[in-house]
């Protein structure tokens, strides 16, 4: 997978967060690691892998809560 596409895939589902009053841009932040040289590329790669791992957690949480919600709505009113 191409680098940019991998970054996008890795970061694609994370929650929105605002850092300070300035929009730093995720792509620009990650790029700083790449510009930093070999050590930085390692950091960028690790950060992307963490995104992938976090995405899995987010998906699991979402699925679990959605299942809970569905189960709740399916329960009989008197129970």
């Amino acid at each position, binding site marked *: 997978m191409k680098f*940019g*596409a991998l*970054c*996008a895939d890795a*970061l*694609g*589902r*994370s*929650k*929105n*967060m*605002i*850092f*300070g*009053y*300035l*929009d*730093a*841009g*995720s*792509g*620009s*932040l*990650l*790029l*700083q*690691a*790449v*510009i*930093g*040289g070999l*050590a*930085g590329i*390692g*950091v*960028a790669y*690790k*950060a*992307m892998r*963490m*995104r992938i791992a*976090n995405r899995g957690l987010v998906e699991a949480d979402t699925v679990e809560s959605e299942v809970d919600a569905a189960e709740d709505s399916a329960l009989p009113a008197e129970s």
Partner: protein
Amino acid sequence: MIAPDPGSFRDPASRVVLDGEKVLRLLDERGLKGWRALAATEFFTKAVSDGRVIAAVEVDPPAGSAGALEHPRLPLVSYPYEWTFSMLKDAALLQLDLLEEALGVGLTVKDSTPYNIQFVDGRPIFIDIGSFEAYRKGEPWIGYRQFTRQYLFPLMLRAWVGVPFQPWLRGDLEGLTPSDMARLLGRRKRFNMGALLHVRLQARMESRMSDRAVREDLKSAGFSSDLILANVKKLRSLVTSLVWEHGVDGWSDYGSCTHVSRDRDTKSEFLQSALDRLSSKRVLDLGANDGHFSAIAAKTGAQAIALDSDEPVLDDLYRRSVGQSLSVILTDLGNPSPAQGWAGGERPGIVERARPDLVIAYGLIHHLIYSASIPPQGVVAWLRSFDTPVLVEFVSPEDDMVVKLSGNKLTEELHPGRTESEFRAMLEEVFEVVNEQALGEGTRILFDLEPR
């Protein structure tokens, strides 16, 4: 009475207010913590004594603020869309130097906008003390994207594409986006590492990522300030390599015009006489060209503001202005910098900021009348709107320069009111003529005017 600076509201930790002639910076708890960390460093003391960072003294805060600082008042606030190439480049290098030095003492600069830099006596000075804060381990440089948009890309645009950056910065106060810059570069600099990383890769990564949650991941992945320092080093090298080669362009060769050398001494004496009479403190030199008359005003102790639309000429003037109380403003008087930004007041127009007590309009009005097609009546009304004494050079329709400027226009296409008698009558309606002096071959007259 305390009035907020209309351009200082984005950072809740640190806001500038004006208390009469005093400039105060009000801090919240976070801002105060950042200030105390900064003030304790030798870096700050040295940067202030070098004139690279504005001085600040802690004063009693007003109710509602955790802390307050007082800054010296700047002679003039200018904006990057009014700067020349060398000014923006010098400001960019100062920004990088300060970030590098701040990281060396455990601080960082949280944003990177040229609006935090001003020019005093021909040198850039960083004015936003509130931008310094303690560096948190593992944090990337939050201002990197802003640096590229507002410094690097505009400089690349001029140096590599040959297009002036000022209209872009004036059109969008946030600067050029990476994707716009990539399109503007086209196939240029395909094998340049700076273009590849900062422009093309940034554009690509930005377009693929719409969320903002990478900071914590970078921290966990082992991001360190060494990576910021490596980036700063590469950026400094890239910015230094950006050069704008300008030859004789526009009015660069104006000094060689016959009437300029012929009349220069007389015009200088006429100005000196007005400066002596008025003891002017702020002199606005409209159409300043090489800054000869601005420099005369600066020598008397006044703050001179040299305004012109010719970038090569002003770029040279900026480089010669070190140590002089002379500010350089690049703007077209047919369309001067307007008030703009948030609520139309974040960045006030140049006329509001200049606040002159003497206006010089030498060698100017014929360009407005014959090139920009401004009616003479409108020019007189505009000069009167400054509400200050004015030195104006009238140029008659028979003057060689006017003949040249109006060569492609039919007489009926020109506004009425261009003759000496008509123009004098318009002047005398709203000004008192204190002094006048004929120049050279009699096609030009200097008027020393005071508003009625």
